[in-house]
């Protein structure tokens, strides 16, 4: 690990004042320290915000919740209000990482974690995300975990978060302390940038901005929520594909639906066309297949990720069956629940 200055921030304003000049915020550190050890990230200063009480705790906010940026993944997944009103979020978090990591990783850090693309991790290989303009070794390389939507010739990396996929489907917003000390809100759906020709620019956060919380809006009444994740081993692995579904049924038809997809894009992926194909439909494999076909038609695959198209298609159909009550969820997969 390269040497760095360390400072513990006594307040949010003090933390903001210490940013810039290659400084990085540290909270849980589960991703940052890993990347510092292999010198993929080499901040000259770490600003420790882990003691800031203002960024801790989950509070009621209107009919929704305000989740402090320092709330750990474990704390959030186990919160009784989240479990009953937003079970999709608990399920997605519990599908990610290990218990040890979830005890330390924070809500803000989870959103800002970096890709696990092997070429980003390997400093001997070209990576535009790590060193802009260097090239992308994933093109023509190997990569079962690469993205199939939203990529560019400069970057094929996928965003690894499960939590962010659920937050996208649940239409959460990120609360940000702006560099001038004000507060701005950005929907999670709009937090991430697509790589284009600058894969190193990953979010719309500006220099000096700090995520302070995530705001969850009230859950739609009568929604049924499912998170379905497919991975190479049963636990503690990143998603090959994952699907978050929140469905509202009315008169035995789909009245509203929100979909988000993980492991397939540089951000939690969304597809209004697939959602539109389901609204008003009687639940059934015909309607589900129409939506799934619309989704995968947009995919652009590296040879190693061709398998993700049929896999994502089947995973979406299976998740929709569960969410609409056509299939009982198995014990080891996310349940469908009706919030009180």
């Amino acid at each position: 690990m390269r040497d760095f200055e360390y400072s513990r921030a006594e307040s949010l304003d003090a933390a903001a004042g210490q940013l810039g000049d290659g400084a990085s915020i540290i909270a849980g550190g589960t991703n940052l320290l890993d990347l510092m050890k292999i010198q993929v990230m080499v901040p000259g200063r770490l600003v420790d915000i882990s003691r800031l009480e203002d960024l801790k705790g989950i509070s009621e906010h209107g009919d929704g919740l305000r989740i402090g940026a320092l709330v750990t993944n474990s704390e959030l997944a186990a919160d009784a209000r989240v479990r009953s009103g937003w079970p999709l979020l608990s399920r997605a978090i519990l599908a990610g990482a290990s218990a040890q990591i979830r005890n330390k990783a924070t809500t803000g850090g989870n959103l800002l974690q970096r890709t696990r693309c092997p070429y980003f991790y390997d400093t001997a290989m070209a990576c535009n995300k790590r060193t802009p303009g260097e090239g992308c070794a994933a093109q023509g390389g190997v990569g079962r975990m690469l993205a199939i939507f939203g990529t560019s010739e400069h970057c094929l990396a996928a965003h690894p978060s499960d939590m962010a996929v659920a937050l996208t489907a649940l239409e959460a917003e990120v609360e940000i302390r702006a560099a001038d000390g004000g507060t701005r809100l950005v929907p999670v759906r709009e937090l991430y940038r697509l790589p284009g020709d600058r894969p190193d620019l990953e979010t719309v956060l500006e220099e000096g901005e700090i995520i302070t919380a995530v705001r969850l809006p009230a859950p739609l009444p009568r929604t049924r929520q499912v998170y379905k994740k497919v991975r190479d081993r049963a636990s503690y692995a990143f998603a090959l594909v994952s699907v978050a579904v929140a469905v509202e049924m009315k008169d035995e038809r789909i009245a509203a639906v929100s979909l988000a997809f993980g492991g397939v894009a540089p951000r939690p992926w969304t597809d209004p066309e697939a959602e539109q194909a389901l609204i008003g439909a009687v639940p059934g494999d015909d309607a589900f297949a129409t939506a799934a076909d619309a989704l995968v038609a947009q995919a652009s695959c590296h040879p190693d990720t061709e398998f993700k198209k049929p896999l994502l298609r089947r995973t979406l159909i299976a998740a929709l069956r569960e969410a609409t009550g056509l299939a009982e969820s198995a014990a080891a997969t996310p349940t469908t629940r009706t919030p009180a």
Partner: protein
Amino acid sequence: MRTRLTVNGEPREIEHDTRTTLLDALRDQLGLTGSKKGCDHGQCGACTILLNGKRVNSCLCLAAMHEGDEVTTIEGLGSPEALNALQKAFVAKDGYQCGFCTPGQIMSATAMLEELRAGEPSYASASLEGDMPLDDTEIAERMSGNLCRCSAYPLIREAIAMAAEVKS
């Protein structure tokens, strides 16, 4: 720089570089070599400790960030003369082969049994609410942050199930 913290109930002070991880401080400065450095990247769980009662990977903690915190390592759980319930169960069930991952397995299982008592669900739980039985699937899911390259998993799960019964 200096950091004061409580380790296995004793106040300790360490002098260290900003880059020193809690794992390296425990092993190299305090001589507590029960916590193992396996991967040093949070993937294997051999360095698992309790930090303020919660299980974490000590390789992914900077010592500088833990002023005033309470750390429990495997040395704080029992002694060769007086093993605790989990340690006894690992011996009784032969829940290891080479033993390198065992301290991390036992620290992780210690916290896992507390999480169960608190009613925290896992990815394997059928329901997010109510009692979840501690079956083999639940143990496997909840212990997935601890690798055993000898693959003693079936016996590790049996040992944890045995200790859970003793405790309840």
